[in-house]
């Protein structure tokens, strides 16, 4: 039964990939949706049986690798943690498939089928990733989703910036994958097995946090975390995610917000037993997560591309999840992953509806006043923004507050109060930039369509971003030329802005309901809930057979927790208020502030110059070494020189030797005679 869950979308991929060109849109799109919805139904049944029987479900598809002591079956395991994940993937995946049938409808038939085949393939690999019972099987999914991410970011590959963004995502992810592979090797050498549960049991019986010290466990977990930073866009490997917004918007919602980018968080949750044995790694995870959350949040404040604001918001929220993992609050991290999937998918799909309605316009400065034109989009988007800002009782409030509370109340690591402070500052920033987006896009009046007066002053100088901005400004109506080829002319001037078509509206409304309700499975004890999700997930983070220690100490300070809750809600409200002052009631003030702090503004607008830094520190040296050393030195100077040298040597010596072949028969006879004389002479006079 488990094998059906990834198999159904895979079948959808195969059919659409090979026959899609000949199928009309209704069939190729319908088939893709049926595959993922069918997978959702099977997943529901499987999860139901796991929950009701309290036992993990396992299935071995086939024996994959056997060599000496190494034996890796291609096995799937469904426990409480992966149950939650497959429901998110297939459930939100289904909604996004349905949404895509509307969003991509202006593509030609073959492109439409290609899009859905990639989307189905992605779902299949993502399900293999979360269902894999051993590291190699998980790694198959891990690489597969990376491939699909590359294919879908570069879906409009005729646009240079899109294909560049795809390559960037792929290359940056390779750095993380390399960490994952090394971690697998260390684990196999140490424990002699790659089955995740067996590794957890072996580690649990061999080590305790005190005896583990700084050794193989720390090394393995740090390398796993390197893999997670690549896939989940954390410092130092987050740079690919904002560029990934070149892909179609539903892809950004599915892959770069709801599912794939959370794979790193899932990986840490899956290996929680190992991470718990490595305090140093946990401190690194928490510190990196917090730093990423703050950094991305500040960048998000000043970006002008609607999808880039959401991308930085995603990076920031992923930082939150890593903060939770780092302080050992695995359940809280996964809970935030789950609620985030709802409201971030909703926000991305909402932004997609805006872009769709405006025929490819993505610049916030050219929007405004869309509230009356796009009521469904507006209200659902508002719900998503409130949820991410942490306004009770929406989903984001419960999960974010759980993370902040666990950060505050965990005595470890020593700098937990600093982490808490930065976390709550980020919560404030989140509310501010989300409502800046809402006010700029939906409130006020529709602003000019022309580019701003001094784009070169305000826009990032980074080549990729500059190219992106240029395409956004110079030709707003042709940006997605292939996508909206026909309707772009009539929509470009905003004469007939239409709200989301039914398929898109359906997905938006369902996700909005999810964003409201999803948090209620994790109502904290302090306000009378029972935090069901934590109880549900906790067994997945313990070694098999380990006794669940009651975490009563955490719940001791209920009054403190209430106070902190009040603080974070107050800050979220303050953030919304600040946003409404600057971007709704007094737009001139924001420009004035940008002028006054132009240095900081420029720094944020250019994303702390990290892309430029990487370019100068890594890309250019590698290019230099490759060009000067490997290409011109080793390849041209060494290998080519040797091969060409042999040829030249043979040609040179033969050009001397061939002079012997004179064609004169008398010379031949003379040399024959001379040779005979020499040979005979040798034998006669020796």
């Amino acid at each position: 039964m488990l094998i059906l869950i990834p198999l159904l979308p895979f079948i959808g991929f195969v059919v659409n990939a090979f026959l899609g060109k000949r199928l009309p849109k209704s069939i190729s799109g319908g088939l893709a949706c049926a595959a993922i919805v069918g997978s959702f139904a099977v997943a529901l049944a499987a999860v139901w049986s796991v929950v009701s029987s309290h036992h993990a479900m396992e299935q071995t598809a086939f024996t994959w690798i056997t060599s000496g002591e190494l034996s890796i079956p291609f096995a799937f395991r469904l426990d409480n943690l992966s149950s939650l994940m497959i429901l998110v993937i297939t459930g939100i995946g289904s909604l996004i498939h349905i949404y895509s049938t509307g969003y991509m409808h202006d593509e030609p038939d073959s492109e439409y089928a290609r899009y859905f085949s990639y989307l189905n393939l992605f779902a299949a690999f993502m399900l293999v990733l979360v269902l894999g019972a051993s590291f190699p099987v998980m790694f198959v999914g891990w690489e597969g989703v990376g491939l699909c991410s590359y294919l879908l970011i570069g879906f409009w590959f005729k646009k240079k910036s899109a294909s560049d963004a795809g390559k960037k995502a792929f290359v940056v992810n390779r750095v993380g994958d390399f960490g994952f592979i090394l971690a697998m090797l260390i684990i196999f050498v140490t424990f002699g097995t790659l089955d995740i549960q067996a590794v957890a049991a072996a580690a649990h019986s061999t080590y305790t946090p005190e005896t583990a010290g700084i050794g193989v466990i720390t090394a393995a977990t740090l390398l796993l975390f390197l893999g997670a930073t690549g896939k989940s866009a954390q410092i130092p490997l987050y740079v690919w995610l904002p560029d990934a917004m070149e892909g179609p918007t539903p892809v950004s919602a599915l892959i770069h917000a709801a599912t794939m980018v959370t794979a790193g968080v899932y990986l840490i949750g899956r290996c929680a037993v190992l991470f718990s044995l490595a305090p140093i790694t946990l401190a690194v995870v928490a510190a990196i997560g917090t730093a990423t959350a703050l950094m991305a949040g500040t960048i998000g404040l000043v970006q002008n591309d609607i999808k880039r604001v959401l991308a930085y918001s995603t990076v920031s929220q992923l930082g939150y999840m890593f903060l939770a993992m780092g302080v050992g609050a695995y359940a809280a991290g996964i809970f935030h992953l789950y609620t985030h999937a709802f409201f971030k998918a909703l926000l991305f799909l909402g932004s997609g509806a805006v872009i769709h309605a405006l025929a490819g316009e993505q610049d916030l400065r050219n929007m405004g006043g869309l509230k009356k034109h796009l009521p469904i989009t507006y209200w659902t988007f508002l719900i998503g923004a409130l949820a991410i800002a942490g306004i009770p009782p929406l989903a984001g409030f419960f999960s974010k507050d759980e993370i902040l509370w666990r950060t505050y109340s965990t005595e470890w690591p020593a700098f937990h109060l600093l982490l808490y402070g930065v976390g709550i500052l980020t919560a404030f920033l989140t509310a501010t930039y989300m409502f800046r987006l809402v006010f700029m896009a939906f409130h006020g009046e529709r602003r000019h369509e022309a580019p701003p007066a001094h784009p070169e002053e305000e826009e990032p100088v980074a080549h990729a971003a500059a190219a992106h901005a240029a395409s956004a400004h110079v030709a707003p109506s042709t940006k997605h030329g292939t996508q909206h080829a026909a309707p772009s002319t009539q929509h470009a001037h905003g004469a007939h802005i239409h709200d989301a078509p039914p398929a898109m509206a359906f997905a938006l409304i369902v996700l909005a309901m999810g964003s409201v309700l999803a948090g209620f499975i994790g109502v904290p004890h302090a306000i009378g809930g029972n935090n069901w999700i934590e109880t549900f997930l906790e067994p997945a983070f313990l070694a098999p057979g380990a006794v669940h220690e009651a975490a009563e100490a955490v719940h001791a300070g209920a009054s403190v927790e209430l106070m902190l809750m009040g603080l974070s809600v107050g800050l979220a409200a303050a953030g919304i208020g600040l946003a409404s002052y600057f971007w709704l009631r007094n737009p001139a003030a924001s420009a004035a502030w940008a002028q006054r702090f132009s240095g900081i503004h420029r720094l944020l607008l250019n994303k702390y110059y990290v892309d430029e830094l990487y370019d100068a520190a890594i890309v250019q040296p590698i290019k230099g070494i490759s060009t000067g050393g490997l290409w011109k030195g080793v390849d041209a100077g060494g290998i080519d020189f040797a091969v060409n040298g042999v040829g030249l040597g043979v040609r040179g010596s033969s050009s001397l030797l061939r002079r012997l072949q004179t064609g004169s028969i008398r010379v031949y006879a003379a040399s024959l005679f001379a040779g005979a004389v020499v040979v005979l002479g040798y034998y006669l006079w020796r």
Partner: protein
Amino acid sequence: MITLNHYLILSALLFAIGTAGVFLRRNLITMLLSIEIMLNAVNLTFVAVGRYLGTVDGQIITFFVMTVAAAEAAVGLALVIALFRHRETLSPDAFTALKW
């Protein structure tokens, strides 16, 4: 008394004359004739040494050489005729096209 050495000296002289002819004459037919002289010098050696050793091997080999020489002369003369028809000359220096 005519000893083996006399025969050998004679055949060495004949061979030297033939070799000099091959190298020095500028006429293909003369060169062929010089080669015949060289062959007959060798034949003389075979016969003389056969007589000296009291066997008939030398005489048998001589017949072989004569047979081969006849065949060689036939082929060689045919080639010479073909070459002459081609170039209207018999000088070996005219036929040096087969070179680098």
